[in-house]
């Protein structure tokens, strides 16, 4: 009887169509989109290759290896990597969100070039390993909220043509201790690619235009 009222009928159609759309999106995401976005730009070899920090997390739920080719030598890319960080040169993604409202740097900043093991990239993201011009490992510390104990590593490879392959790997084991954590992961899992892709392409543009 209630469903005969146009408003209630419309509400019913509205919720029903959203449920169908969400189920379709979930199927699409797990069948194809997730794997594509978790390995965006990376070759099969880059995805399977060992990177610093892999041993810290066994079989993580989030294991994203993304890569970009840069027309420059690794030595020219490295300075842009070491100056990354909150209230430093930014993360080259969405400046106003990840760098305290300031845009990410468009030049190499000499005062941020002396990064060393133990320094903080973000308030809870620490440099744990680094081999200049080759690789770097950042580990999220306690207090990083849902990112606690996640690892973020970088590799730079010189290609035969003298260019660089910049590879980023983000690994995290999901924990579902609260509803807030569940919601966080549901949002982060499909959305984090937007930031990471912007970061990689942001580095590429800056290196190549400088």
């Amino acid at each position, binding site marked *: 009887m209630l469903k005969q009222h*146009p*408003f209630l*009928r*419309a*509400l019913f*159609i*509205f919720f029903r*169509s*959203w449920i169908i*759309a969400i189920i379709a999106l979930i199927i699409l995401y797990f069948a194809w989109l997730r794997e594509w976005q978790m390995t965006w730009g990376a070759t099969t070899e880059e995805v399977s290759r060992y990177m610093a920090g892999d041993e810290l997390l066994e079989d993580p739920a989030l294991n994203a290896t993304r890569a970009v080719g840069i027309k420059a030598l690794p030595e020219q890319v490295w300075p842009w990597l070491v100056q990354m960080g909150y209230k430093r040169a930014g993360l*080259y*993604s*969405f*400046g*106003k*969100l990840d760098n305290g*409202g300031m*845009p*990410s740097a468009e030049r190499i900043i000499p005062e941020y070039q002396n990064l060393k093991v133990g320094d903080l990239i973000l308030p809870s993201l620490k440099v744990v390993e680094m081999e200049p011009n080759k690789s770097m490992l950042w580990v999220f510390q306690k207090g990083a909220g849902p990112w606690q104990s996640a690892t973020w590593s970088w590799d730079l490879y010189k290609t035969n043509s003298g260019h660089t392959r910049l590879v980023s790997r983000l690994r995290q084991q999901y924990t579902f201790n609260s509803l807030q954590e569940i919601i966080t992961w549901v949002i982060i899992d499909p*959305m984090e690619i*937007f930031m990471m*892709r*912007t970061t990689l*392409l*942001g580095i*590429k*543009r800056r290196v190549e235009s400088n």
Partner: protein
Amino acid sequence: MVNKNDIVINENKIKTFRWLFYISLFQLLACFIFPIILFPIQILLYIEILIALTVGLLFGLYFLGVNIYGIFIDKRRRPIYIVIITFISVWTIWTIITWLYIEHMYYLT
């Protein structure tokens, strides 16, 4: 010969559709209005652009579907639906271009 009962059913369909139109319009507007409560004014425009590029477009595409359905079911308001469909199509194209060339979008990065 048109049956009186058919006209009533058709009118009900249009009424139901218009409610669906208003509900999905409300949903779309709410996703842009809600951040006003949550975020400071300095980064509000930035947040709104990011919403337009992500979840806002998802709601926009839902509204697009509703409007396409409207063209067939509610012929009296067809011009309104055509304008909305055109607007959301342009919005979708802008979003695709923005994500393809995100590193060159200086207002975002």
